[in-house]
């Protein structure tokens, strides 16, 4: 595991993702601006204008066309990337399903921002959670360093699994927050990624094919079953891609999740994205100052859902607080809580799970949110039963 050369830089999340895209030098980028992801598109356009990449940049007239052009380009064998957020992702929704069902390894940088209405440009996860069943692999990152590395490993993952990948950062918190990070050399990134080997190619005019036919009752289920199996197989590809990344660059990334002081934990918090940093500090305080057996699990990959891994690390926890930065509007709280409950359900010893929804529309996520969550779990541990399955943290009554 020889470590490759790295250079220290200070970049925002958007700059780091655009920089990774420059190093990747995709064949085609089709994208449309939207706050807080706009800079990714702007910076990449500048790389094109300066000749730092030889990408064909398609400045489309909407996100719907961005994803549509990505599908066309990826079906033509190209390495394809894009970026968006919120309303843009929602506008792509129809085509997200098509990209995955056609088995096209498009990599998309998504800057998490809430969905209208009311219109708001700040972070929560309702946009990507809204596309959770679209057949895309989803990687949520905690900091700028990880966003940068995940963009690179995301491309590798997509092309191994032949499935599209979203790599996300929390809007403004990461996208506009400056951090110092280590970046690799362009040549190393390009060598690591090599050439894409497509499953099929509409530019292969000597071997014509039909892509996207009408599939009726006699065949649709079989094709869908194949796509579902690809998501099962994606788990292995995700591990392989991350192992290869570690071997090549000498840098380890957490794969599906990052357990934090979970070993003997009685209480645990599950959280995604940048809030994990604050959560870890609270865990440290509760453990070191107050002697509580508390741990945290940052879920990094939400699709495919790592139920086996979760069973292993959370099986022994007694009280589990799942913090969602999105609400399913189903009166049960957030989607991560629902899915974790399903993953742990058939264990005879399983934690009591409560859903917490926090940080909507960019509401600050101070340490108090985490203390409040743990207090609520202690209250439950004391034998109380909450009248609802979900508690909202950080909102005025």
């Amino acid at each position, binding site marked *: 595991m020889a470590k490759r050369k790295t250079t220290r830089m200070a970049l925002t999340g958007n700059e780091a993702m655009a920089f990774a895209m420059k190093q990747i030098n995709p*064949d085609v980028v089709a994208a449309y601006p939207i706050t807080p992801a706009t800079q990714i598109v702007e910076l990449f356009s500048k790389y094109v204008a300066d000749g730092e990449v030889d990408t*064909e940049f398609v400045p489309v007239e909407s996100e719907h066309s961005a994803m*549509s*052009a990505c599908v*066309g380009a990826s079906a033509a064998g*190209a390495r394809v990337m894009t970026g968006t957020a919120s309303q843009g992702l929602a506008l792509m929704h129809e085509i997200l399903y098509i990209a995955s069902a056609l088995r096209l390894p498009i990599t998309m940088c998504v800057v998490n921002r809430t969905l209208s209405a009311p219109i708001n440009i700040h972070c929560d996860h309702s946009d990507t959670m809204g596309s959770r069943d679209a057949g895309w692999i989803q990687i949520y990152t905690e900091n700028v360093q990880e966003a940068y590395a995940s963009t690179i490993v995301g491309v590798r993952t997509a092309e191994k699994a032949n499935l599209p990948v979203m790599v996300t950062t929390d809007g403004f918190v990461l996208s506009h927050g400056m951090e110092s990070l280590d970046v690799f050399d362009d040549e190393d990134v390009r060598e690591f990624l090599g050439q894409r080997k497509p499953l099929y190619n509409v530019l292969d005019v000597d071997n014509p094919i*039909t892509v996207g036919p009408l599939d009726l009752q006699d065949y649709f289920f079989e094709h869908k079953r194949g796509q579902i199996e690809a998501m099962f197989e994606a788990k292995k590809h995700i591990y392989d891609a991350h192992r290869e990344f570690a071997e090549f660059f000498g840098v380890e990334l957490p794969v599906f999740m990052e357990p934090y002081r979970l070993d003997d934990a009685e209480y645990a918090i599950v959280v995604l994205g940048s809030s994990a940093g604050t959560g870890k500090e609270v865990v440290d305080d509760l453990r070191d100052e107050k002697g509580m057996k508390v741990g945290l699990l940052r879920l990094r990959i939400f699709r495919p859902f790592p139920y086996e891994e979760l069973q292993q690390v959370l099986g022994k926890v007694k009280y589990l607080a799942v913090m969602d930065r999105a609400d399913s509007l189903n009166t049960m709280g957030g989607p991560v809580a629902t899915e974790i409950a399903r993953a742990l359900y058939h264990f005879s010893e399983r934690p009591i799970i409560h859903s917490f929804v926090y940080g909507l529309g960019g509401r600050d996520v101070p340490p108090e949110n985490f203390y409040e969550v743990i207090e609520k779990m202690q209250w439950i541990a004391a034998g109380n039963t909450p009248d609802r399955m979900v508690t909202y943290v950080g909102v005025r009554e």
Partner: protein
Amino acid sequence: MAQKAKTLRDLARMKRALAPGHRACAGCPFPVIVKLVMSATDYPLVVANATGCMEVTTTIFPYTAWPVNWIHNAFENAAATISGVEAAYKALKRKGKIPADKEIKFVAFGGDGGTYDIGLQALSGALERGHNFLYILYNNEGYMNTGIQRSSATPKYASTTTSPAGKVIPGKLQWRKEITDIIIAHNPAYAAQASPAFWSDLIRKVQKALEADGPSFINVISPCQPGWNYPPDLSIDLTKLAVETKYWPLYEYKNGGWKVNYKPRKPLPVIEFLKPQRRYKHILNRPELIEEIQQEVEKRWERLLKLEEAFPLKE
């Protein structure tokens, strides 16, 4: 240099018809349009197709009628999809992953719904960006695949399932918008209107479009047997009558100039085109409405002649 068909014999030698076994209605003429477009040259082609009758009837898995590479993405995004394919081609050529001398042409087919209505934005974007592709609108003047609903291509007084002729309202109340004018406003490399009955005019236009440097567009009339409601053997005759009545002028646009390719010496009254179609049966005994249609045909025709006179097409 690609071969270009001139005669029917040349077309046959290309062996690039839509294969038999597709499920379009008996007499549906869009397979003829596809054959003419694919056989006009021997360029390797990649086709994108919008959702609609053409896509649905020609690719029911596992039976596809397309002999060339073909991709369907969704209803409103054929132009964006072909933009992506074309962008990939450019990038891969630049990076040496496709040989420099390998020339491929890109064609999108969309229905009127996928072009005038839901796909107009994506098409406008692709035209403005200047991708090298030919967009063929097969225009059957309605959403036929979903059961004959109105589109903004449906002509005034035609009865459809969402503009039905009723006791009070005589079918659709709006004129169809002029999509070819809208396309021309984008100043494409080439734009034209064509009719399958005039096959040699059509293939010549396809050849010019494929040679043009930039986006091109051809609006081709394509009757729909159940939608227009006529005996199936009349499909091609109707595309001739549409031209002979000046309902569907054959013209082209290039370099800022117009050319009307065919001026019927003795134009037929528009009723000759309307009469065989039962979508108009409720107005056939209302001469004032027929006259209104005739006036609109004359108005649009005169406008075209004026454009041609003021801005003649220079090759």
